[in-house]
């Protein structure tokens, strides 16, 4: 029973027929390999493309929207910012250290491919519960992989996110986002123009790394069989990447590249065909010129190899010598492997023989596109009906003992203190607050960034959940004084061949789009990761949003969590929904209740709160958006970080633990009053040695701090 080659490569019979129609003949082995990977879910977005068009992508400041390696926005005075997010979920499950490390390497290449210097990384990550040793091993491996690669390559990691849920036990999520900065005239695109120009392969030698990794690991479910499919693990080399970054940036500075493309999934075949297709040209590629790590590699292997730390630069023949000399200075290997032709053919030669000859554009443009059936889950109405049953009275002090001990709510410094988060001397608000804030030296400009996701809430209502993470991210940057400026999204979902999963996907895109429209922020890029399913069990629909905020000028002394002082007033901005407990931390962690329907965001109120928060950031010492754990946890975080207690007076305990959206805590000297246009009320005063909720209980500050600080260390050692 020998399965036909195309099926073994994960290609359907119809897709195979399409290849034959394009070539008007049976494909050669190398050609089949190229189509199989380029038409995989991971590379072609065949199940998602039809719906991603819903995202709003336009704004006057958008320079490069979705489709390129990274989105680019205009910051004025010649400055541009590049942003991109990617997932490395399956590789990180196979080998957490290397999976996460190579994820960082890949996202950085997406950034400097645009001509930008990468200046920061974020790591939204998700695992199963930490009482399982395997999950502890995965978390430690992923965090040290991000630290090991990010610190050594010399790009600071300025934050991220972490969540825990059973559905991530066999399928952890490791997303990585990177931000780059460049001057307008340095912008480069991945297009090969100019017949006769030379394609130069820069960086690491090509070996048998992750052959078919992209297609097979990221495009098929992860079950016992995949042991067999498992590609050889890729080893990240941050040193090679660092040299590559410096070499490429100098190439751009000297104006030596016409176009450039990083090598990721499908390696040389993807990079050469995309460069050619984007430039409306063709290319002749000579595989004998490729510098190999292992000899005796087949043409297919060389074409498909996903060896890390490689770039393909298109240069003019007269510049070739200077390019090679510059590569040598940086101790980066370089070889001229191709020539741009009038096209449209991509022709690949090996040992003098032609091993592939196909229309370059067909690998991307002719990829299949599926409008897979979507169906609302039958169980939905029951789930929505099952609102968490709330007790009449709650001791909020006790509730905090449980909430602050949750590894996703407690102090995350165990993670981010393993990351260099200060390099480049730009970090004004470091990880440990809401959004992180960077300055742009030599200007008044500031960039604020936050990554946010919420698996449990999106599982209950993907549309509202998807919208709410966008609103939360907007507030996380607003508290630093920055206005929401651009969004990238990472859509982590289960098996798209299941109608329920497709429904979740479409609902999520709709919800995120509505929120972005209400905020007037364009989506400038994203990534889709399907087949996050293990043994038939899908993960929660888990969209993750990366929000870029921009301020000019930046507040002189931006709000922080640790600037509260005795006597200052505590104010709550924003609308209130006392019953929004579905998927709240209190319901999940204290009550163990999983059902209900989260409240819908309110576009007008939300936009008003964001606007007012940005104004307050100019003069409030402390601003903190209310997220998981509600007002109680937000107050506790401010008290613990500032080393002083607080007295809170509210009528109903639900005001302290509900998680209705669009709310911010402002702490300010008594004369101040933040009210203006948005609902605001004073709820208490900073001071004392306890976090005291009056009739609703209290907890000594020291005890709260202890519990909060130990939440991760006591589990991870």
């Amino acid at each position, binding site marked *: 029973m020998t399965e036909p080659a195309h099926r073994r490569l994960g290609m359907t019979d119809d897709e195979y027929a399409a290849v034959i129609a394009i070539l008007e003949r049976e494909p050669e082995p190398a050609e089949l390999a190229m189509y199989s990977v380029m038409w995989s879910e991971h590379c072609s977005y065949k199940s998602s493309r039809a719906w991603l068009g819903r995202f709003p992508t336009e704004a006057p400041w958008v320079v490069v929207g979705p489709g390129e390696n990274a989105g680019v926005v205009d910051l004025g005075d010649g400055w541009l910012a590049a942003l991109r997010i990617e997932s490395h979920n399956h590789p990180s499950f*196979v*080998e957490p*250290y*290397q999976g996460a490390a190579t994820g960082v390497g890949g996202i950085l290449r997406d950034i400097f491919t645009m001509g930008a210097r990468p200046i920061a990384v974020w790591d939204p990550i998700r695992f199963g519960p930490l009482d399982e040793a395997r999950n502890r091993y995965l978390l430690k491996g992923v965090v040290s992989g991000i630290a090991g690669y990010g610190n050594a390559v010399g790009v600071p990691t300025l934050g991220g996110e972490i969540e825990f849920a059973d559905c991530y036990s066999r399928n952890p999520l490791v997303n990585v986002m990177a931000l780059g900065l460049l001057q307008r005239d340095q912008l480069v695109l991945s297009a090969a123009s100019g017949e006769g120009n030379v394609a130069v392969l820069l960086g*690491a*030698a090509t*070996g*048998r*790394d992750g052959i078919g990794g992209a297609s097979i690991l990221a495009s098929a479910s992860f079950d016992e069989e995949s042991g067999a499919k498992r590609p*050889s*693990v*890729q*080893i990240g*080399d941050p*040193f*090679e990447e660092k040299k590559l970054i410096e070499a490429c940036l100098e190439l751009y500075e000297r104006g030596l590249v016409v176009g450039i493309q990083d090598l990721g999934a499908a390696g040389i075949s993807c990079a050469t065909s995309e460069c050619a297709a984007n430039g409306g040209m063709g290319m002749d590629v000579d595989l004998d010129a490729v510098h190999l*790590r*292992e000899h005796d590699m087949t043409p297919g292997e060389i074409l498909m190899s996903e*060896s890390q730390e490689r770039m393909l630069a298109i240069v003019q023949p007269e510049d070739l010598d200077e390019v090679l000399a510059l590569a040598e200075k940086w*101790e980066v290997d370089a070889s001229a492997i191709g020539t741009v032709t009038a096209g449209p053919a991509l022709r690949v030669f090996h040992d003098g023989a032609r091993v592939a000859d196909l229309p370059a554009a067909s690998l991307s443009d002719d990829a299949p596109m599926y409008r897979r059936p979507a169906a609302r889950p039958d169980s939905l109405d029951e789930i929505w009906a099952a609102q968490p049953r709330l007790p009449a009275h709650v001791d909020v002090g006790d509730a905090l003992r449980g909430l602050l001990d949750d590894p996703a709510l407690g102090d995350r410094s165990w993670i981010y203190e393993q990351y260099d988060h200060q390099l480049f001397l730009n970090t004004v608000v470091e990880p440990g607050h809401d959004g992180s804030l960077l300055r742009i030296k030599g200007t008044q400009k500031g960039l604020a960034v936050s990554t946010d996701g919420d698996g449990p809430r999106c599982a209950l209502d993907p549309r509202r959940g998807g919208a709410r993470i966008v609103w939360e991210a907007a507030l996380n940057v607003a508290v630093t004084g920055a206005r929401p400026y651009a969004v990238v999204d990472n859509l982590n979902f289960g098996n798209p061949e299941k109608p329920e999963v497709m429904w979740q996907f479409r609902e999520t895109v709709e919800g995120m789009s509505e929120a972005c429209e209400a905020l007037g922020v364009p989506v400038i890029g994203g990534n889709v990761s399907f087949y996050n399913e293990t043994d038939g069990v899908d993960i929660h629909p888990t969209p993750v949003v990366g929000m870029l905020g921009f301020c000019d000028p930046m507040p002189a002394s931006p709000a922080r969590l640790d600037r509260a002082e005795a006597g200052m007033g505590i104010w709550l901005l924003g609308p209130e929904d006392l019953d929004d407990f579905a998927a709240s931390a209190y319901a999940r962690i204290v009550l163990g209740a999983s059902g209900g329907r989260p409240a819908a965001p309110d576009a007008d109120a939300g936009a008003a709160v964001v606007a007012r928060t940005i104004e307050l950031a100019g003069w409030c010492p402390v601003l903190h958006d209310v997220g998981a754990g509600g007002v109680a946890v937000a107050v506790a975080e401010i008290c613990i970080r500032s080393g002083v207690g607080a007295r809170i007076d509210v009528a109903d305990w639900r005001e302290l633990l509900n998680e209705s959206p669009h709310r911010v805590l402002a702490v300010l000297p008594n004369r101040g009053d933040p009210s203006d246009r948005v609902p605001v009320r004073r709820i208490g005063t900073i001071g004392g040695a306890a976090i005291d909720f009056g009739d609703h209980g209290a907890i000594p500050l020291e005890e709260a701090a202890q519990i909060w600080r130990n939440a991760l260390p006591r589990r991870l050692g």
Partner: protein
Amino acid sequence: MIFRVSITRKAGLSDPEGVETHRALHDLGYEDVGEVHFGRIITLEVAGDDAAAVTAQIGEMCERLLANPVIEDFAIEVVE
């Protein structure tokens, strides 16, 4: 008894540290040096007299903690 565990990266996986050290040795003029590969040694003192039994136990330690079976091979020798 004292045991020595040698842990080396599986063949075919890249070894950036080996590559850079190879480059450095050549810069220092040692042109005869070919491939360079890195690994770790862990020496363990373990109470017990049945070498075979202890070796088996150390194999288990390697699988669980000392080595990373996905990308590394290991070998165990009795030193004394």
